[in-house]
């Protein structure tokens, strides 16, 4: 391998590590807001960064974060569809588990922290309002949110406001007592 090619590979590796350090939390949380499961969110995050690794040389750094979030949300939605289909097949097993009170350690922790109520309230908000709220909470600008969700930038303020109001309403019903 020539020096130039080796230098190009090294530069891409550094850029990839930097992208992971800066954005993996946002990607993980965006994915989790959709799939509402830490394990599935990990799978989605892994897939997103493998896609990034393959397209590293063609992606503009300025649109990197919106691109990552857009890919994460799309993959998360696909994962959710697959999960719903699988759950339908395993409906009996799930029903029995719930009836027998079988819960994982993670579920117990989330229950104690009131996270399940938050997720339930978030789950009741329709798209794209929910993603707008989650991404705004993650510190994305309106421009980045619009780019990530392929929406008009001028509408993002309204979406965030409506999502916020809906969350307050739904969380008020299910979550106030647990705080």
């Amino acid at each position, binding site marked *: 391998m020539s020096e130039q090619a080796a230098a190009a590979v090294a530069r891409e590796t550094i850029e990839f590590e930097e992208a992971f350090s800066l954005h993996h939390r946002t990607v993980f949380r965006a994915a989790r807001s959709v799939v509402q499961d830490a394990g599935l969110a*990990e799978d989605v995050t892994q897939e997103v960064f493998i896609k990034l690794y393959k397209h590293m040389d063609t992606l503009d750094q300025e649109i990197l974060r919106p691109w990552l979030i857009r890919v994460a949300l799309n993959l998360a939605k696909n994962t959710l569809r697959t999960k719903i289909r699988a759950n339908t097949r395993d409906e009996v097993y799930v029903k029995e588990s719930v009836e027998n009170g079988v819960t994982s350690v993670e579920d117990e922790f989330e229950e104690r922290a009131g*996270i399940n109520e938050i997720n339930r309230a978030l789950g009741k908000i329709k798209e794209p309002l929910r993603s707008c709220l989650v991404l705004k909470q993650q510190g994305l600008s309106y421009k980045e949110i619009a780019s990530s969700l392929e929406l008009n930038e001028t509408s*993002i303020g309204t979406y965030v406001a409506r999502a916020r109001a809906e969350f307050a309403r739904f969380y008020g019903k299910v979550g106030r007592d647990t705080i």
Partner: protein
Amino acid sequence: MNGNCLDIGTIQAFLDGETRPEEAVKISDHVAECDACTLLLAQAEEESSMVYSVLDRELNTLVPTQRLWTRINDSIAEEKSRTSVWQRLAAFVSTSFMSPSFAGAAGILMVVTLGVVVWNFNSRVSNNEGMALVPTQSGSPTAVPPQANPEEVGPQLANADDKKGGVRFTTTKLPESEVKKLINATYVERGPKKVEAVQARYLPGEESYIRTIDDLEQTVTAQNASMSASSQVSYAKDIAVVDDSIKKMREVVKKNPRNQAARQILYSTYQDKIDLLKASAGRGEMMASLQ
């Protein structure tokens, strides 16, 4: 409240710091004067702080950074190991061409290869230019196919080549003056411009047949007057049949130059016409000597 009141989207953008500075000043001025918008802004601010603090709790739960990094690295390593031989070869070629010496050597090789191909093509074209006229034993010219392309000639000619080493011998005798004329015509040098013009007019290998036929026709026309009426009619009829056949086959070959069978029939028909003309010329000569 008045017509300039703020909508909820503008208030949210103002709270999120997403408005331009001049727009933010206008909103502040309006809020200072409008009670309804002041109330709306206060409610939105309170609700936002509550929602974001609750979401913080959910979204800022631990992210398994180390585990994610390990999983991603493992997947990438696995992807790399699956790289095909062709991809590796492509990567080798692309990196090799970055080296100036390799690229230079490859360039020279390509130029040399191109030169060889062009030279071969030119030599093939000159071989195909037409059949050479070769003097026969008796001095009468006849068409002989180029040695390099035996497949392009009719079976009659190819057989003649096999038997007599590429020269066809005939026993037809022509007058001395005609023989000289034909021999001279055979060895006239042709320049490249003439060759190009001839190539445009004739099919490959056709030119020598036509020249031979032209010369023979001149001879026969000169002798025609001494022929009997029945012989003239018979000759005209035979020539018409052969000409018609030539015309049809020529059209077929022109439409599809790769049709070797049609080309062979065309050359064979040309040879038939030559034979017919020679026979006619021989008969005319005999009649003249008898008279």
